[in-house]
């Protein structure tokens, strides 16, 4: 299977992308079954950043003009709108794995999990549903109320009352890491639903809403466990004696893929104020 991992960002976020790519390259897939490329959608990278990618054989896509853009949204949001277009931007692959730049593969089984599921032609998409207590937006009542009421308002505005009535009590999938075959029906619906969202005031979650509406329409998904897309700003994993990362609520569960969300957000600890990213670095979750 010809498989393409795709990332995208601007120059300012490139430090995240580089660290993410290193974790992809650290754990090669079985070459008997997978021919893996990494591709990067360049949203205004600097020359030395492009050189870094080129040295590593990473395929660059630079033509942003063929992509839609949210109303009044900054240029970096091409990293949101490019996702449904991967089979068009990068043809000739059998399947794609979208990887947010703040994703880190912690163990070989992380990337392998997504690749393995792609071998089943009946699967439309593989993604993690935000269902477990590690997703604090569901585990904490006040956070859940804010998170889901905003989601319901967004979906009502873009897709109408019928759609929102259907899915208002439904827990969405996270769109920061997902895999789908090139022939999956998900892509056409994802494009169409994203198009509907382009004309409302920009919100960073509109793209994830579009993916979730599309998943409900298309069905056939594989629900990845949260340890395959662990939102670290929601719940920091803990490091075990064997140097693997673990679910703090169930220390027997290894975390295979860390999602270093909200990196620039401030956090306060007994040591003082810092950002999540500094916390992630100090813990050793990223280089």
């Amino acid at each position: 299977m010809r498989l393409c991992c795709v990332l995208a960002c601007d120059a300012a976020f490139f430090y995240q992308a580089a660290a993410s790519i290193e974790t992809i390259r650290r754990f090669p897939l079985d070459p008997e079954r997978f021919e893996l490329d990494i591709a990067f959608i360049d949203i205004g990278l600097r020359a030395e950043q492009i050189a870094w990618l080129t040295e590593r054989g990473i395929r660059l896509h630079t033509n942003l003009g063929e992509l839609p853009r949210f109303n009044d949204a900054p240029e970096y949001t091409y990293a949101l709108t490019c996702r449904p277009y991967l089979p068009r931007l990068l043809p000739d692959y059998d399947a794609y794995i979208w990887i947010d730049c703040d994703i880190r593969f912690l163990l070989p089984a992380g990337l392998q999990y997504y690749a393995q599921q792609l071998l089943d032609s009946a699967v439309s998409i593989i993604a993690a549903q935000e269902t477990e207590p590690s997703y604090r937006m569901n585990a904490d009542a006040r956070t859940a109320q804010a998170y889901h009421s905003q989601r319901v308002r967004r979906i009502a505005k873009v897709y109408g009352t019928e759609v929102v009535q259907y899915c208002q009590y439904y827990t969405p999938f996270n769109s920061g890491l997902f895999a789908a075959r090139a022939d999956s029906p998900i892509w056409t619906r994802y494009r169409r639903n994203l198009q509907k969202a382009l004309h409302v005031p920009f919100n960073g979650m509109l793209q994830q809403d579009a993916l979730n509406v599309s998943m409900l329409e298309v069905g056939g998904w594989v629900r990845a466990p949260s340890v395959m897309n662990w939102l670290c700003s929601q719940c920091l994993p803990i490091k075990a004696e064997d140097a693997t990362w673990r679910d703090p609520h169930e220390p027997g569960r290894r975390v295979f893929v860390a999602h270093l969300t909200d990196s620039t957000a401030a956090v306060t600890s007994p040591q003082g104020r810092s950002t999540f990213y500094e916390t992630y670095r100090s813990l050793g979750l990223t280089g």
Partner: protein
Amino acid sequence: MEINQSDTRYDYISPNFRQIYLDDSFPNMIAGDPTSSNWPHLRHGPHKWYCDKRAGPVGFLNRDEAHILYNTALQFAGKPALEIGCFMGWSAGHLAAGGIDLDIIDPLFGDPAVKESVLSSLSRTGFSGKIRWYAGTSPDVVDRLGRQGSRWELIFIDGNHDFPAPVQDAVVCERYAATDALILFHDMNAPAVAEGLYYLRDRGWNVRLYHTAQIMAAAWRGAALPVDHIPDPKANWPIPEHLRGLP
């Protein structure tokens, strides 16, 4: 529910169509009053609106729409076909009259009274010889039949009209449609139903609308071709916003 005698609604059939009248096989069908339905996507136009006097205000295909089915089916005589959503059998009767080999899926077949009524009506039409019935819902039953090897050249989707069912129907039908295939939709006036057509269009199928009371549509690929249709020139059907731009 039944209309009063002063009602001015009339039957219309596209003048290029071969005609058939199955009314005698559906003794409980009446020309009803569409205002008795509270479905927001029902259009009230000049054409007669039919329903089953026992079943409440759920409409049948009107005369013109039933003839789109019949004349399409004639082009597929002897070929495997699928209907999702049969209700009281009116649409199935018109499909079967075209001589197709028909699988029908409807959860209402789980109700013995409905099933008996449908079987009785279709038996009266004399076209029930090549029909198979499946009590259940799409996409599950379609997927099961498809996995068992069924491939359909003609498909009529008139099942659950609410999000996300129409796209789910379109996805599963595309998966098991023959290489040369045509898919018909009823009730395109409902935005959620139209999304099923958009799915097929975005996957490379040819599409067209039929300007009837509830608006029908065809999607086709390969050597399959839709029938032509001449809308009633006296009916001034507006094109709903969600269908603008479709041929």
